[in-house]
């Protein structure tokens, strides 16, 4: 009886709290990380706030902090951008150590909109670029590659998950960081080299599967042996 109570307190309660915190974090539909992590980004054409068109693969060689936003946002996106502005000086210089891209996913956003966003938020526009996709096809290729889903509301508003995506120097989706305010340690860890766990991620599922299968096999054998 006592052990049951202890199990509840040590095992189930933290689990419930964990799920609670996970659920309260996001709005909208969270991305399915298992489908995107480690996958190569498509080579989409982007347009920055100065009107220059470039391929995202031109940024190869440095990690990218990709921040999906839309310019008419007046709730989460400005907070995300301001938080990034506070955190980024602690990590290095954008353009030299890494790239920062604020990417507008609003299909209606034009260059004027992102230019205004760039000027309002005092973003330099070079190391930290504010971009839109060249055309709709590119937009949805990029949005699908990070499994970012949004729901359209009235007045050009959207329901969307609040997150940053860290892209590795070889253009693979590396890590998602959720929330509207960020801790520089999270970002630092994401920008650094891959940890063992990240390398093992594709195999984790199969390790679990083997564990599950062997456990059930063991239980079955046990049951039959007991009877025999």
């Amino acid at each position, binding site marked *: 009886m006592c052990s049951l109570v202890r199990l509840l307190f040590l095992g189930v309660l933290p689990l419930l709290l964990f799920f609670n915190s996970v659920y309260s974090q996001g*709005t*909208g*539909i969270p991305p*399915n990380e298992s*489908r995107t992590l480690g996958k190569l980004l498509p080579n989409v054409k982007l347009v920055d706030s100065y009107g220059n068109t470039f391929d995202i693969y031109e940024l190869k060689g440095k990690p990218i902090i990709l921040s999906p936003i839309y310019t008419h946002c007046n709730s989460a996106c400005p907070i995300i951008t301001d938080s990034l502005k506070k955190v980024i000086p602690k990590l290095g210089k954008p353009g030299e150590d890494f790239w920062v891209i604020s990417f507008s996913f609003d*299909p209606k956003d034009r260059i004027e909109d992102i230019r205004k966003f760039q000027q309002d938020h005092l973003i330099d526009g070079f190391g930290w670029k504010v971009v839109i996709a060249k055309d*709709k*096809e590119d*937009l*949805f290729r990029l949005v699908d590659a990070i499994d970012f*889903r949004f*729901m*359209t*509301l009235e007045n050009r508003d959207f*329901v969307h998950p609040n997150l940053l995506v860290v892209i590795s120097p070889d253009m693979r989706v590396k890590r998602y960081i959720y929330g509207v305010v960020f801790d520089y340690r999270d970002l630092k860890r994401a920008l650094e080299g891959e940890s063992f766990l990240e390398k093992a991620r594709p195999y984790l*599922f199969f390790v679990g*599967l083997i564990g599950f299968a062997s456990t*059930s096999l063991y239980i*079955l054998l046990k049951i*039959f042996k007991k*009877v025999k």
Partner: protein
Amino acid sequence: MDRAERGAFITAVAFMGFFFALIVYAAKGLNIDVPTCITDVKPFTQGQVIQHAPDRYEIHYLAKMWYFEPADVELPVGSTVDIYLTSGDVIHGFKIDGTNVNLMAIPGTVAYARVKFDKPGVYHIVCHEYCGIGHQNMATKIIVKGGEQQ
């Protein structure tokens, strides 16, 4: 253990293993999405079709006694559609025939599923949860046009 008992036991476990393997295959091999229920947004009060790109749509379905809004929708073949569904009154069902979209319209929440229409044709949508006296007439359709048929 009796022989018959053991046979039943092994059969049951084998079936469970088979179904588990199917679930794993659906999730990992077929990339099937599980419907999502969004509970932290204010549900929309109007149904509408939003076109983002030539093959990208968002449809907001409002289920009410006893119709869906918007009514018939026409889409080009190959469209990827984000379907959002809410209810204006009681709980309704939402099943697009011929796809794996099977949602529940719950007042106060928004249900979500993504579907890609690869084949042209008429996709009937029915309410499959009893919602009152007019339930059997509650249906609409998506007409997917284009492709080889035309």
